[in-house]
Structures are given as C-alpha cells and as structure tokens.
C-alpha cells in the first residue's frame, strides 16, 4: 500500500452481517471490509481519522474466495481483507 494513502481508500465499508452484529453487540468489535493491501497500522490510522475514535486493537483476516470455471478459463476472484476493530474506552462508531 503506498504511503499517505487516503483513509477512504483503506476502509471500503463497514461489514454488516449477523456475525459482525453479534461481535458488535457482545464484544464491542466493529468489522470493516478494507483494502487487501492495507496494513494494521494503516487501518488503525484510517479508522481514527474517519470516525474520530481511538483504536485499541486491530485483527485482520484475508479471505480467499472460491475460483470459478467459466467459458474462457478459471476465474480466480481477488482476495479481500476484513478488519475487526476494538476501540478504546467508551468510544463508539455510529454505523446506523
């Protein structure tokens, strides 16, 4: 990931699913879809800049997706990255 990249390019979108909602309600952990090239440090900086909160911890997961046989060969989808963020103290992010 190039240095000084815009926060908006790092963070794609919050991930809203049953699992992420459970993590949010029970563990106060927010899940985001982020750029696959972004590092934990960049994600932390981007979240702090975008949402004006203090990030305590960042966990990331690289997701590989199923490849698909199509007419013209094998289609291998790009990898995506999820970031699970834990905030410091009582900081919150308004997702809804």
């Amino acid at each position, binding site marked *: 990931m190039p240095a000084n990249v815009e926060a908006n390019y790092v963070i794609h979108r919050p*991930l*809203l699913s*049953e699992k992420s909602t459970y993590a949010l309600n029970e563990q106060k952990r927010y899940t985001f879809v982020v750029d696959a090239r972004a590092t934990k440090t960049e994600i932390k900086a981007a979240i702090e800049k975008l949402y004006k909160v203090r990030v305590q911890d960042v966990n990331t997961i690289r997701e590989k997706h199923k490849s698909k046989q199509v007419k013209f060969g094998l289609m291998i989808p790009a990898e995506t990255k999820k970031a699970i963020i834990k905030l410091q103290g009582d900081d919150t992010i308004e997702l809804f």
Partner: protein
Amino acid sequence: MSTTNKVNVIDAGPNLKKLTIEVPAAVVEEKLKTSIDMLTSQVTLPGFRQGRAPRQYVEKKFGANVRRDAKAELASKAFQDAVADLKLKIVGDPSGGNLDKVDLQDGKPFSFEVEVEILPEFELPSLEGIEIKKPMLEVTEDVVNEEIKKICINEGALESRDAAEAGDYLTGHAKMVGPKGETFYDLQGAVVQKPSKDKNGKGMILGIMVEDFDKQMAKAGVGDEFTIKAKGPEQHEVEGIRNADLTMTFKIDRIDRIIAAKIEDVVKAFGLESEQQMKDAIKQRLGVNVQIQQQSAMHSQVAKYLADTTKVDLPARVTAQQAARTLERRRLELMYRGIEPHKIEEHMAELRAASSVAAQRDLKMFFVMFRVAEQLNTQVTQQEVNQRITQMAMQRNVRPDQMAQELRRTNQVNALVTQIRDHKSMDAIIAKAKISEMKAEEFNEWAKKQG
C-alpha cells in the same frame, strides 16, 4: 400520555369544513415502532437471515418508506375517526390539505389539515299525500305501425350515394379543434347524419349539437370536406370544450342512405310466422314500455314536488363533479326507457348544451333523494340490480351478462344502484300519494302548463 386525537373544526364556507387533526406523539411513536418491527421481522437483507437484521439497520434502509406509509395510515384512520366522532356526512373526497408537506417525527405529534364538503342540512317536506296525476297511455295500432317502420329502417340495407341528401349518413374523418389549435377528437370512421327535414337543419357532429348544421354543411359529396363552427356546451365532460369556439372538419369518405326493409323480409328474419304475430310481439313489448313511461311521468312529478319544496345550499366543488356524473345517469335513464342508442347520443348532445342550472338541479335532487332514501330506509339488493340489468338487456336485445359487463366496464353499476334506490323511494312516495288518472292528451296539456 394522551392517545386521543385532537380535532378542530372550522366552517370554511357553505357546506365546507376545515378539519385540523392532531395525532398525539405517543400514537405516532407506537405506530412507527410497530411498522418498523413488523418490517424487521419480515425483511431479508444481505448478510442476515430473515428477521435477523438489526432494527436500526432496517430503519436506516427503509425508514423513509415506512414513515410515508405510516403517515398515510395514521392520517386516514385519524380522518375516519374524526368524521365518525363528529358525525359528519361527507360528500366527495377530502382536499386542500397540507398532508404532503408534513412528515412523521419521533416524539412529536402529527398534525395535518384537510377540507371536506359535507352533505347540506335541510328539511324534507311531507312525503305523504302528495297529489299525483297518472297518464292513461295506450298502445294503439298507429304506435305499433310506427314501431314497425323503425324496425324496417333498422333492418334496412345501405345504398351508396355520391351526394348527400336529407337523412343520409356520412362516414369519414372527423376532427375537432379548439380556439388555440388543440385537437380534442381526431376520428377515422366517424358518422354524421345530414339533418332530415323534420329536424329544421339541426344536426350533431362529434357529440356536439349544432343549430345550423345543415346550413354550414351546405352541399356535400364523396371526397368533399366541410367545416362546422360551434360553441362548446357549458356542461361538456371535457373541460377544454366547455364554452370554447370549436372548429370541426369532416372529410367524407362514404355516403349511405338506408333503404327500409320490406315487412315480409323482417318477419322472416325474426323467425315469425306472420305480420300479425310480429305486431302482437311489438304490442306486448310496447306495453311494458308504456308502464315504465307512466311510472316515469309519476316519478317526474314526485321529483318536481321534492325539488320545489326543498331548499338546499349546494357545495360548490361537488357541483362541478356531479355535472359529469349526471350525464352518465341521464344516459342510463334513457337506456332503461328503451330509447335507441343513436337517439340517446342525440339527447346527450342536447343535454350537454343545457345550462349548468340543470346540473345544479340534479345535484339538489341527488341530496334530496339521499335524504328521502334515508328517511324511508330504502335498501337495494343484488337481486334487484340483476333484475334491472336483465330488463335493460331485453330492451336492447343483448344478453344480460353482456349488459352487466358493459355496465361494469363503463363504471355505471353505482349509478344503476342509485337509480334503483331513487325509483324505489319514489314508488314508496307514490304508494302514499293521492293519484288521479287522466287521458294522455290531457296529461300532456297539464304537464306543458306545469313547465
């Protein structure tokens, strides 16, 4: 917290009320909560199984639609409750409100205004012991012969002509243009009749009755085009035509004259054995028509009595709407009397030409008859509606189901129910009236004097 609506009513004119309705904040909140909860339990969003999406997420995604629907439901219920509580008898649809401009907000009461026209308040005269004259009508030989003549014309053959003479039918392309060049009608295959001698030059084109039609049409042959200029009638159902200077052009494609069929051929075509058998059948049918005419004559007297003895202040907006409905009712009335379709159209054209006074009188009668039906507790059953449809179908020589379909297609079933209700109410008044019989000629003289 209060959960009852606050309603404020002010008079905004004759028979016009302005309602200001305030739905309490608690009710608004409860309604929004229920609507979103219901949606949350039903909706399936990506990443969530059905009913598992967080309430806030659903609200963010569908909140605007939910609020709009909840607003419509709350407004409708609050309006109906207000009308029921205040015992208002509403005429027409509510209007002039600010419902589009206000939104539902959490924790705030929902307040809106609406204007309604109400049934005028008036006193009905006594409905008992009215003096009614009953004309004694007979189906004479002359009447039967006249009817046979008409049937012969209906069953006649068309003969092509090059130049039009009185009574000939012209088929072609008709166009009606307004003063600013706007086209109201553009019809291929339109038919006009060159006025016959008994009509004194009066004729109809595209539903408009023109006094000097024959003069404006002048001599016409196949391929010719003629222009008719006329003023649109005050009560035409198309607003742009009312009182407008109209120019109607007609390009003649074909001229036909009806050559009446021979009576022997008509008898054969109808599957009858003799001319006498046909006369008997016609006499029987005319006999039924005579009864209806007698009834109509008496109904007219009841209607006149009610109209003359009742004072009603009419709501303005509904009066205009009623004008269009009145035309449809008149058409139905003429169909019920068994008048031929082309005559009905001629009559309708004349009606359109009549002044707005007629519409006001009809609207007044509508209100009066509504009150009369209420007072006499007149009810209309489905069986009565079916009977009337069958009767009309017989008169027009079509199957009852075809007639019913036509009435449904043209939205005339409600008008038919109103007609039956009015007839029943009038029959109930006639049953308690003082009836004196008189000969048809005397009755006509008397009716002329009465105006």
